[in-house]
């Protein structure tokens, strides 16, 4: 069964100055264990699509299922973890406290909370930072903590909206590597929004190129790259070819709009 399945999905926002057609006729299937990147110019509806999957936004047309349920049911079943663009850690909670937050809300027993916090901290390589406050960490470390927070309750689906958008290229490179490793280890399904072509190509098994006004899917590219990806795969011809196709897809979408 597909983890995410969208059929002629449509979403129009009513705003003060007329309706905004944010998503139009989205058809997409995502199988378990895939790493899917969404790329497209600003305003093309990437975030909106992710929010629909998360049940934070209600589509105005078409159908969308998550693990076979409606997105809202999936949200209440805590089917996914969501990572926002900015780390958005609560500044009044320590790193450990932030990771504990979803566990508290979902009512995990005390011992279980402890175990999971320690485990996820280790997973994102932040052991020893449990008692620190967010602002005592660098931006990259904060973003890792926010990923840990989304991992803590061990949902099979991870939704990430430009998680590394605010970081500099070098830190970003390292986090990309780590994310790939994590994905390989856990086998989760990933939906990943990005603005960066190299990032999308480097990470994904499938790249969804979107174009704006109204937000549509203009291309879906299945990556032939192997699962093992050292950083300098980015200088390989295959990589460059996919990147080229993504860029062409973006350009075409822009011109059509």
């Amino acid at each position, binding site marked *: 069964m597909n983890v995410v399945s969208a059929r002629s999905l449509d979403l129009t926002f009513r705003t003060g100055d007329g309706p905004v057609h944010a998503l139009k006729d989205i058809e997409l299937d995502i199988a378990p264990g895939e790493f899917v990147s969404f790329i497209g110019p600003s305003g093309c509806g990437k975030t909106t699509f992710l*929010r629909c999957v*998360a049940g*934070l936004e209600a589509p105005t047309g078409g159908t969308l299922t998550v693990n076979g349920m409606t997105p809202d049911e999936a*949200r*209440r079943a*805590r089917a*996914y*973890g*969501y990572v*926002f663009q*900015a780390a*958005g850690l*609560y*500044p*009044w*909670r*320590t790193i450990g406290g932030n990771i504990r*937050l*979803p566990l*508290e*809300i*979902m009512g995990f027993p005390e011992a279980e909370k402890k175990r999971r916090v320690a485990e996820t901290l280790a997973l994102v*390589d932040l052991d*020893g930072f449990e008692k620190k*406050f*967010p*602002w*005592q*960490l*660098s*931006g*990259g*470390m904060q973003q890792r903590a926010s990923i840990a927070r989304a991992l803590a309750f061990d949902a099979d689906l991870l939704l990430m909206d430009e998680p590394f958008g605010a970081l500099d290229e070098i830190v970003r490179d390292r986090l990309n590597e780590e994310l790939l490793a994590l994905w390989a280890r856990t086998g989760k399904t990933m939906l990943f929004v990005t603005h960066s072509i190299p990032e999308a190509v480097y990470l994904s098994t499938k790249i969804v190129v979107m174009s704006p006004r109204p937000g549509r899917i203009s291309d879906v590219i299945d990556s032939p790259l192997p699962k093992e990806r050292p950083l300098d795969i980015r200088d390989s011809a295959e990589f460059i070819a996919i990147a080229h196709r993504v860029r062409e897809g973006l350009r075409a979408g822009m011109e059509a709009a």
Partner: protein
Amino acid sequence: MTDAPLSAPQAGVGRSGRVALRLRAVSGTVIPVLAVIAALVGLWYLACIPMNAQQSVLLAERGGAEVSPATASERRDVGGIALSLRNPDPALALAFGQDRPVLPAPHQVAAELWGSTVGLRVTSKRSLVFHGWITLSATLAGFAVGTGLGILLAVGIVHSRVMDMSVMPWAIVSQTIPIIAIAPMIIVVLYSIGVQGLVPKAVISAYLSFFPVVVGMVKGLRSPDAMQLDLLRTYGASGAQTFWRLRLPASLPYLFASLKIGVAASLIGAIVGELPTGAVRGLGARLLAGSYYGQTVQIWSALFAAAILAALLVAIISGVERVLLRRMGLMR
């Protein structure tokens, strides 16, 4: 540690670094503050001369000195500065020690302050500590009630659109009502149901302090951004969970900012509440009694006592704020 957080703010700041920073901050304000105070005190002394000139010259005249103009009725039309210039000796000599000066000299006020706080038993009716305590207890009671009410109202406003739309404008209008006008009425109404003493003052004090708290708390409870709220939605959190885990902690810095304004307003409220019933107890009563008998020195010392009390209350709240917010990691 492969990724030492060296780029994080303050990552390398040790204890000594913090202390050094604090020391620099202290010397960076203490000296200018002292300089400004010195300048103000100097100006104050200077101002005493013309302000008190009429009386100085009158005293000199009664003492048999030659003054110009010679009679009080002629002098009445001469300004203080001109009078001081025409009678420099008495104006200077007698400006700083009068019993009922128009403007008491700083040392007179300081001596009165000292004498009526440290110099007396705190149980004495002349002790400013005694009166300060009376006012303080009403202030604290009113502040507690006002703050509680303000927070409740803010919670209501944040969670209910009707309350937001209907209550907020009237809360603003309520602040345009001159409190001194309704204070006596509050007192009389409370009298009629047999309530007197601390409660009426506390009610007025609460009336003045609830507003800043409402405004600050509404802002604070609304300070979490859409993303922080959405995060909790992704966890399927309930309204109560959202309130306790997100809105409330996020509002604390705003709350403290309003508490500092609110406590000062509470103090004013308590003093205003002490005025209508006149000479009973408290700093307001001292102010009024001083005023009633033209005891300017006593007025000024009560005035400064009130300001010092306000400063202390604000300092205490700042202290609590610093400890709490630092423990919560909200203050660096």
